[in-house]
């Protein structure tokens, strides 16, 4: 029987060319009985890592050869294969140089680079043109005679026999052996339509008009051995196997060395780490550890395991970064699996105090799992760049780079691109995309698209739906990971090629975080968090105005403060980290968290995962009457005890699998990873049977096992690890503490770090006003760029800053403050002399900033305009104006406020309408409490948000805001559809319906009639945040 090795095969990481995933290619090659397969994407090894992971996971016996296809600037085409590790390093270096010379997505290669290949094997692909092929043959044979082959492909095209004769002649003339190769682009012939579509997308012209530019047939796919035997002479096939035998390099040989310079001489990594941990214990536990006996032994256990797995460098590298941030007073916080280790707490990487939370060290590092620990560190989002530049400067640009993320096709982009390729009209595609509701569980998008007018039986639309389905998940291009850094001891490109990212001074490796994980390479995540900036700004304001010095550890050391928790239980959490969203606010009064761990649960439970898994109600039920919680076994009680018998955290799912179903640590972790991606490749089903069988073996009832599995499937992508929730809970507590004790400083901190969080400045100001904090308007003489605190009527009020004025640049604001004398500006002309740009002057005028100069805004703008035409000298001799605009009405000034500073201090739209008597009878938000349950009520308010979470069967949650507070309105699908006109378009709405008061005092109004009141204020440009 013949044997063959495929040496020239491109995956879909040759963007818009290859039509199959690396995994599919490797599996099909294995099925067809090939000896080996080389993944040779164009100037990239991105696909090779995926292929390696697939082989490892499915334990295929086929050999993977690492290689790449190159097209030189003069048109010479080569396939380069790596027989040994040094050859691999050679190739990575050449790819890096080629990529770094040209902008993102392209590469440039000259013959000089080919000359640097000392160990790589070269397969030359002749072009078929006599003169050029001979010239190239001369050049190539001069460089490397014994590592060079001619690659012949058989695609049964029109004049292929001449091409083959030409190759034969070249082989004899230059005594070069010939090998058969496939030029494979598809793992199965049925992928031809997809390959044509990709080509159409790349060329930007519809498929029908590409004609002869497309592949003529399906031959560029993996073909059976006996078909190859027909096509190629036996000698060529055997040559391919001979080449494959010479390639012994395997990706597992890639070893990772940490940067060694951090260890001071005279220390081994272990001893240095132990020394750091001892220092840490002194600072973290100043009053000794005698009443916490379990902490010291765990630290010993952790250190012994770290030494065993040689992860010392990893901790020391992160420790170094964190110390830099501390020295620059940049607030930071470690999270992820690292938050489970006490060593990290001692190294001040994480802030989760082991004394409060029960940490699960296995989750961090486990003996059998050889998977790297991953530590994410959040920094203040305005100062993260300083940390990144520190890393680049410390390790050098050639030793560190960002991990890649693969941007792939999602339904919307797939619909648009495939539609254009098939020649469907642009306006029609926009119409489809806007109308398909992706969260709709019961109607798949294919059926939805038919109701929208795509006629189902035309051949084109059948192709359209199947192509969109196939292209989803295909990579479009590589972009940089948000903050994942790869740091190596030697030059990084020996390990993996590095290419330019779209941002100027950033470089990206060609592998994403999953590839790094499967190849065992270290990654440190440097992420940005807005709340940290807000908290640091609040601390600074408190220090400046209240002269109190506070830090995060000081606050957590004070343990749980009942007053703060009472505020949280009242759902008065606007602006607080993680628990400010509408869904959280409706759960807080029911869960009534009163301790740190309750907060951890609160953050984890109000997420789509637990909600879909149907875990919220049982948790509440068990909490009310803990007596009748039934644990089927002692072991499970130990796992689920702290969460009232209901699995909420990912760690608990792993522990259940290990304890109840007898999974090993490694299998449990693969279950966790499968949970994350089951929507894409459906691996979870395989683990499902294993889990249920395992639990039955340990004699749990079948329905309990299935319910647990259902809950795990519900977790899907949103299951939240306990460690993350623990770290977030710290910030949530600190921000609520600040909101309770220093509200003014808290609001200013938030406003100065905007955009962040769930609410717009207008709503934050509204909330501040409800907490009786006085808000002083922006004034030309008092305000500075940032919002500040100002002592006003014996308490701290918030003075709005120039940053709130739309259209005013920071530079101009700074200039205004500098040129302002002590007692401020006397009249408008002084400002005109500063020759500030005209549109910025107008922005100031419309923000009514010149009130202090006794000019209402129309007057101010009118006088500002007169100056511009005749220059400044004449202005003094200006005669009194014949025309002076009269003052704006309240309504007009309100509209002006929203247009200029996006909020209004003195009036609320609803208040104005009420005073104008346009609203008729309605109940303001704050009087809703004294309305009985199930009573008919009508409310009026500004629509500040619409949410239609996927979980609800088409029910929409609408939030109305009037001058006294918020009202939650529930709109059933039927009412929404029936009164669609009012429901969708309105900004101010009057809703009449039935008031419902759930447990814990949470009130909703079930909408009966919706009246659109917005025509009354049609110019109001209030932007509501709509989460459809």
């Amino acid at each position: 029987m013949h044997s063959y090795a495929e040496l020239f095969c491109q995956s879909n990481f040759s963007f818009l060319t290859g039509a199959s995933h690396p995994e599919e290619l490797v599996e099909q090659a294995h099925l067809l009985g090939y000896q080996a397969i080389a993944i040779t994407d164009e100037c990239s090894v991105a696909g090779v890592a995926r292929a390696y992971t697939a082989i490892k996971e499915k334990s295929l016996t086929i050999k993977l050869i690492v290689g790449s296809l190159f097209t030189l600037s003069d048109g010479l085409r080569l396939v380069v294969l790596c027989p040994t590790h040094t050859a691999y390093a050679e190739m990575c270096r050449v790819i890096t140089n080629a990529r770094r010379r040209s902008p993102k997505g392209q590469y440039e290669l000259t013959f000089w680079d080919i000359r640097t290949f000392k160990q790589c094997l070269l397969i030359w692909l002749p072009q078929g043109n006599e003169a050029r092929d001979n010239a190239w043959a001369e050049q190539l044979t001069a460089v490397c005679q014994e590592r060079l082959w001619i690659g012949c492909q058989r695609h049964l095209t029109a004049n292929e026999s001449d091409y083959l004769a030409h190759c034969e002649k070249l082989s004899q003339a230059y005594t070069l052996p010939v090998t058969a190769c496939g030029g494979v682009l598809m793992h199965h012939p049925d992928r031809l339509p997809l390959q044509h579509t990709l080509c159409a997308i790349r060329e930007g012209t519809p498929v029908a008009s590409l004609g002869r530019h497309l592949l003529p047939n399906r031959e560029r796919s993996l073909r059976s051995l006996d078909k190859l035997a027909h096509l190629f002479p036996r000698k060529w096939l055997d040559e391919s196997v001979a080449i494959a035998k010479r390639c012994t390099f395997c990706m597992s040989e890639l070893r990772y060395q940490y940067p060694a310079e951090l260890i001071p001489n005279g220390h081994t990594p272990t001893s240095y780490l132990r020394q750091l941990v001892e220092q840490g214990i002194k600072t973290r536990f100043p009053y000794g550890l005698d009443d916490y006996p379990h902490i010291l032994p765990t630290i010993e256990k952790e250190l012994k395991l770290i030494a065993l797995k040689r992860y010392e460098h990893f901790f020391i590298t992160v420790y170094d970064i964190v110390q830099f941030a501390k020295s620059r007073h940049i607030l930071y916080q470690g999270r992820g699996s690292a938050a489970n280790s006490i060593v990290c707490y001692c190294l001040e990487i994480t802030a989760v105090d082991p004394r409060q939370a029960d940490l699960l060290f296995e989750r961090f590092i486990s003996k059998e799992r050889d998977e790297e620990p991953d530590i994410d560190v959040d920094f203040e989002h305005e100062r993260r760049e300083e940390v990144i530049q520190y890393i680049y400067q410390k390790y050098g640009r050639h030793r560190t780079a960002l991990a890649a993320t693969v941007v792939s096709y999602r339904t919307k982009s797939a619909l648009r691109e495939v539609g254009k390729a098939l020649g469907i009209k642009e306006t029609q595609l926009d119409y489809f995309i806007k109308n398909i509701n992706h969260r709709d569980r019961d109607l798949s998008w294919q059926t939805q698209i038919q109701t929208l007018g795509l006629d189902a039986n035309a051949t084109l639309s059948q192709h359209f739906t199947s192509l969109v389905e196939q292209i989803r998940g295909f990579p479009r291009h590589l972009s940089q990971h948000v903050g994942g850094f790869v740091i190596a001891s030697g030059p990084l490109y020996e390990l993996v090629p590095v290419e330019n990212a779209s941002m100027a001074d950033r470089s990206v490796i060609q592998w994403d975080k999953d590839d790094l994980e499967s190849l065992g390479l270290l990654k440190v995540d440097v992420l940005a968090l807005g709340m940290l900036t807000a908290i640091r700004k609040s601390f600074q304001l408190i220090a400046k105005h209240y002269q109190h010095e506070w830090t995060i550890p000081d606050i957590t050391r004070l343990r749980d403060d009942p007053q703060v928790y009472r505020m949280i239980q009242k759902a008065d959490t606007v602006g607080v980290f993680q628990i400010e969203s509408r869904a959280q606010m409706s759960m807080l009064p029911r869960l009534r968290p009163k301790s740190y761990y309750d907060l951890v649960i609160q953050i984890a439970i109000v997420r789509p995962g637990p909600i879909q898994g149907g875990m919220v109600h049982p948790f509440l039920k068990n909490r009310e009457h803990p007596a009748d919680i039934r644990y089927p076994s002692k072991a499970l009680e130990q796992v689920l005890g702290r969460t009232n018998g209901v699995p909420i955290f990912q760690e608990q799912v792993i522990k259940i699998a290990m304890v109840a179903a007898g999974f090993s640590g490694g299998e449990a972790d693969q279950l966790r990873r499968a949970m994350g991606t089951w929507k894409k490749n459906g691996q979870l089903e395989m683990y499902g049977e294993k889990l249920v069988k395992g639990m039955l073996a340990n004699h749990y009832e079948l329905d309990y096992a299935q319910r647990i599995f259902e809950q795990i499937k519900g977790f899907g992508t949103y299951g939240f690890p306990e460690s993350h929730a623990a770290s977030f809970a710290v910030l949530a507590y600190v921000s609520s503490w600040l909101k309770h004790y220093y509200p003014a400083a808290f609001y200013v901190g938030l406003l100065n770090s905007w955009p962040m969080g769930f609410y717009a400045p207008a709503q934050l100001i509204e909330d501040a006003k409800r907490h009786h904090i006085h808000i002083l308007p922006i004034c030309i003489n008092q305000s500075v760029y940032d919002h500040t605190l100002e002592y006003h009527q014996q308490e701290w009020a918030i003075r709005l800053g120039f940053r709130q004025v739309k259209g005013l640049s920071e530079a101009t604001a700074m200039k205004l403050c500098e040129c302002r004398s002590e007692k401020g500006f006397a009249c408008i002309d002084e400002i005109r002399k500063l020759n500030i740009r005209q549109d910025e002057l107008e922005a100031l005028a419309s923000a009514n900033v010149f009130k202090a100069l006794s000019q209402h805004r129309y007057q101010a703008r009118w006088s500002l305009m007169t100056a511009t035409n005749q220059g400044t000298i004449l202005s003094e001799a200006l005669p009194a104006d014949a025309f002076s605009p009269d003052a704006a009405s309240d309504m007009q000034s309100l509209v002006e406020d929203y247009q200029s500073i996006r909020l209004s201090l003195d009036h609320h739209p609803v208040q104005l309408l009420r005073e104008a008597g346009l609203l008729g009878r309605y109940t303001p938000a704050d009087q809703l409490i004294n309305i009985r349950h199930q009573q008919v009520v009508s409310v009026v308010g500004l629509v500040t948000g619409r949410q239609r979470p996927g979980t609800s069967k088409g029910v929409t949650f609408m939030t109305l805001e009037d001058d006294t507070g918020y009202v939650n309105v529930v709109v059933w699908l039927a009412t929404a559809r029936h009164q669609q006109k009012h429901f969708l378009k309105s900004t101010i709405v009057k809703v009449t319906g039935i008031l419902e008061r759930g447990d814990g005092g949470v009130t909703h109004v079930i909408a009966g009639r919706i009246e659109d009141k917005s025509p009354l204020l049609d110019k109001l440009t209030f932007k509501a945040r709509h989460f459809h």
Partner: protein
Amino acid sequence: MQGLWLYLHFPQLQLDSLLKQQTQEEAVIIVETSRMQVVQMSPAAYESGIRKHMNLGAAAALCEALQVLPYEEKSERDTLKEIAHHLYHITSDISFSGPSGLLIRAHTMLNLYQGLKHYWLALQHQLTALEFTYHYATGHTPLAAKLLALQGWHHISDDNEKITSALKKCALRLTDLDNKSVQKLNRIGIQHLGELMAIPLPDIAKRFSHDMADYLGRVMGLLPHPVSFYHPEPHFHHYKELLYEITDSQRLLTPITHLLDALERFLRLRDKLTTQICFTLHLRDAPELSVYVGAQQGEYRAAMWKNLVSLQLEKLSLTAPVTGMTLHAEKAYIRQPERPDLFTTKQGELSRLQLLSMLQAKVGENAVFSPRLGNDHRPEKHSLQVNSLNTPASAVSAYPLRPSFLLPHPVPLTEKVTIEHGPERIQTGWWDDAPAERDYFIARNHAGQWYWVFRTPQQQWYLHGIFS
């Protein structure tokens, strides 16, 4: 009484011409593609709540089965030209203003129609016949009339105060001022035209811009407003009464030559050529018969036309005696001098276009064509035919050794053949309903003829081409 202007504003020309064809009540909207905003909507769409300037997403959410069409300004301008052409019979001074507005000078026509009312009645009668929705208004200056029409004033009157008071209430957004200056005006409390007119012109020129002052001056009639009017292009139309009825088509030639001479004089005077002429033969108590004669190359000489017409007449059979005939030449265009270069030896006196029009006149238009290259792997879609000589050939790569003749449809192979060369595999065309899965071979039959055959996956053999 200074001048009186009438302005007709057609808000949805494209939609109206569309709705005329399909009568049923369907929700149709016209979307302006660059900003994806609704500009015109059918009554059904209006009921479901769709309004002007709404974006596509909101409109789609409001109404399920919606037909979306892109806005084409060119088609609107053409319909506007047709309307102007129709109105030209009633009133002379018409001028276009934008793709959807017609400005008519009314005061010159008043004494012809004894008064504004009669004039407007005649005009209205003509407009209703065209079934286009329109807003109308009169004003003392062109811009005033336009503003009032856009406002939808719908008054025909020439007394001054009524017009100026209506003008004062116009909103600023309808004026031709760009919206940046409109916003500046709003910001100092000026919402309507009246308030703007209150400010003296020099102040406006000082604070805003000169063209705003000019615009206001023209609206109020203080400054002149030159207007250019529409004149339809002339074309040849000539009726000839026959002395005695003619029944035999051949003998029609003599009267036709007289008409052709008149045509030649008309064209030569204006130095124009025409590519198509049409004879309408008025038959006794039978419907008119019209005969179209086309020439590929623009022609004005009567002799050449006579030649072509005689070829056409051969094929013509008359059902009833002819009493009169009219000659009508539609598309006449200015003659560009033909620059034959010196080198081409011109033996015969016919140019290739003249030869082509002669052949087409003899054997019919679609029996004469020129071969062109398509762009497809499937042979039958790669060899195309076009009717005129001047469509350029596409520079697409040709593979060596293709058969000289391609059978119109592949025919099952019946003879015994020996395979000489192949296979060449073609598997494409999945996107239209003529997919091809073929392996092509060059084969030779016992008689020595070279055949181009192919085999399908179901092992059937077909003959597709001959290497002659």
